[in-house]
C-alpha cells in the first residue's frame, strides 16, 4: 500500500513540476483539439434530417472525451482538489462488461464489514477522521485484490438541505469517495457513482443521530466471478 502511495506521490509531483496537462484517463486537455468535426445526432424537437456535423471555434474537445472541459489550470492542480473523471465504461451498456445497476447488491457477511458506510459532516463532501479513511483503505485493498468486483458508490444527504441541492451534494460525496479509491490505485472502471440526495435515508428520524447516519456514502457491489 505504502509503495502505491509513494508511486502516486512521485507521479503527482512530476506532473505538477512539468505542468503535465492530462486528466486521469491520460487524455490531453490542452493543445489537443481534434481537427475533425463532432458528429451530431438527429433532431430531437425538430425535423429529423440527416446527420450533420458542427464545429464551434474553441469548443472542440479531445477526441475521446465526451465533453469539452474547462481550460482552467487550478481545476487540474494535483494537490488542490484531486478529481478523476467518470469511467468511460457505462454500466449496462453493450460491451462494457458491467451489468445494469439493478444487478448490484448490498455487500453481505464478510464483505459488509469491508464495504461499510462512510459518514460526512453537514454540507461537506470531504471525509474527515481516521475511521472513514481506514474504511476507504480496506475497500481499496479489497478492490485491488478483486479486479472483478465492481462498485456503485451511492451519495446521500440528510433531510435538512434543499432537495435539489442535495442531489448535487450526493453526487459530489460519491465522487469524492471514488477519487480516494482511485488515488489508492483502484481501477476507475470498477467504480461508478449515483446520487440519491436525501431521498433514501438509512434512518427515519428528525434528530441529530438520524442526520449523522444519513449523510453517507454507501456501497453496492457486483462480482462478475461470484
Amino acid at each position: 500500500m505504502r509503495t502505491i502511495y509513494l508511486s502516486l506521490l512521485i507521479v503527482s509531483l512530476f506532473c505538477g513540476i512539468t505542468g503535465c496537462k492530462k486528466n486521469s484517463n491520460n487524455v490531453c486537455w490542452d493543445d489537443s483539439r481534434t481537427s475533425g468535426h463532432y458528429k451530431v445526432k438527429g433532431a430531437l424537437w425538430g425535423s429529423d434530417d440527416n446527420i450533420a456535423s458542427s464545429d464551434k471555434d474553441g469548443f472542440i474537445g479531445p477526441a475521446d472525451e465526451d465533453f469539452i472541459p474547462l481550460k482552467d489550470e487550478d481545476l487540474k492542480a494535483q494537490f488542490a482538489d484531486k478529481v478523476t473523471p467518470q469511467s468511460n465504461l457505462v454500466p449496462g451498456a453493450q460491451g462494457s462488461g458491467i451489468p445494469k445497476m439493478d444487478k448490484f447488491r448490498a455487500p453481505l457477511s464478510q464483505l459488509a464489514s469491508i464495504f461499510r458506510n462512510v459518514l460526512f459532516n453537514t454540507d461537506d463532501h470531504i471525509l474527515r477522521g481516521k475511521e472513514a479513511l481506514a474504511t476507504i483503505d480496506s475497500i481499496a485493498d479489497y478492490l485491488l485484490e478483486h479486479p472483478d468486483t465492481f462498485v456503485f458508490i451511492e451519495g446521500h444527504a440528510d433531510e435538512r438541505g434543499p432537495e435539489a441541492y442535495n442531489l448535487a451534494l450526493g453526487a459530489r460525496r460519491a465522487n469524492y469517495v471514488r477519487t480516494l479509491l482511485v488515488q489508492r490505485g483502484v481501477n476507475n472502471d470498477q467504480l461508478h457513482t449515483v446520487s440519491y440526495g436525501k431521498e433514501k435515508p438509512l434512518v427515519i428520524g428528525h434528530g441529530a443521530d438520524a442526520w449523522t447516519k444519513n449523510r453517507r456514502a454507501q456501497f453496492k457491489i457486483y462480482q462478475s466471478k461470484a
Partner: protein
Amino acid sequence: MIFSLLLFGLSAEEEIRVHLTTESLLFPLYLGALQNEESSFENEYLQDLETVLRFDLQYNGHTHVIEKEGEKEKLLLADLQPMAWKKMGVAYVVKGIVHHRHLTLMALSTQTGRLKSFKEIPLSGEIAQDRRQIHKLVDAINQEIFDTSTFANTQILYCVQGSDKFASEIWQCDWDGKNARQVTKEHSYCVSPVFLSRSQFLYVSYKNGQPKIYIASVNDGVGKQLIDLKGNQLLPALTPSRNKLAFISDAGGRTDLFVQPFSEDGREMGKPIQLFSYPRSTQASPTFSPDGSKIAFVSDKDGPPRVYIIPVSDSGKRGEAHLITKQNKESSCPAWSPDGTKLAYSAKTNAIRQIWIYDFKTGEERQLTSGPGNKENPFWAPDSLHLVFNSTDPLSSEIYLANLNQPEAIKITHGPGKKHYPTWGRK
C-alpha cells in the same frame, strides 16, 4: 403527543402569506351568476363553469372577485352602465351568458366605460374539457384589460412521490391544479421536469440506474435519453429559445455546471461544455436569463450554498461567478423570471425556507413568503407575476400558487403523495 397534534393542527391551518411591496393593487371585480339562455346544461355544470371563471379572475394578479349580492345581480340583467357600477365601488364587471351550447363573456371597465364582448366559446358539457376554454377566455380578458401575458391556459408539471419512498412520477395539471393526470409511468424516480414546448418536456429519471436527462411527450410520457454523457446528470434548465440546455453533471469528477448547445430544430451542437467548476465545491440548480446569455446557479464555493451568476461564455475559460444572494446564509433553487427582471429563490429564514425575490433593477432582495413549511423550487409563470413552489412539512408536501400582488398563496394540489419540483409551461 396532544401538544404535537395541536401544533400540527395549528400549522396546517396557518396560511402561507405573501409579502407585497405596496398596498394591494387588486381591483374589485364583480362576476355575476352565469345567465342561462335556452341551454340544456344542468345547473351543477353551470356552477362548475362559474367556479373556474371565479378562480381565474380571483387569482389573475390584477383583480379580486367581490361577493355576489341581489342588488348587483339585478343590475346585471340590464345593460351594463359604467356609472351605476362605479358608484358601487366596482372597477370591473364580468357578465357571462350561456346560450344553447356556447358561452359569451362581456367585461366592463367602470373607469374607462369601455365594454368589451369576447368571442363566444363552444361548450361540450364536460367540465374537464371546457375548463381549458374558460382559461383561454380569461387569458383574452387579462390581455385585453390588463395588457398582460397570457398564462391561464398554460400547464404545470410537477412530481408526485408515492408511498414507496424512492418512486416519483411526473404529473400535469392546469394552472389552478385541476385536470391533474399522471404523465410518466416509469415506476422509477422522475424529478425536475422542465417544459420544452407545450407538448414536450425534459426531466431526470433513474430508470436505468444513474440519473440521466430524458425527453418525453406529455401525451405518452415515454422518455428518450437526451444527453449521452457518463455519470450522473441532474437539474436540467432550458433557455426560452431552446438553444441551450444547462445541467449539473459529475462526468468530470466534480458536480459541475454544463451547457449543451442545440440548433433551432433541436440538434445537439457539439459536445456538452463544462461551463463552471470549482475546487472542493458543489454546483446545482441552473436557470437561464431570458436571452440565454447568463446562468444563475447555486454553489458552495465560498461557504454555504448561495446563488451566483455567470455569463454563458464560449471562451473555454471559467466565467467569473458573481454572488447575488447576500442577505441570507443559505440560498438555493433560483428561477429567473421570463421578463428578466427578477430571480426567485429559496432561502433559509429563521430556520424555515422561504421564497425570496432578487430584483435585478435595484439589486435588492426581499422575502416573498412567510408561514409554515419549507418552500423550495420556485418557478415563474410566463407573465412573470405568478409563480409556483412546493411547501414541505413533516406531514405533507404540496404545490402552491402565488402572485406578487396577492397576499396569500393558494394550495393547488391535493390527494396522496409528496408533490414537488413544479415547473410552469409555455404559452
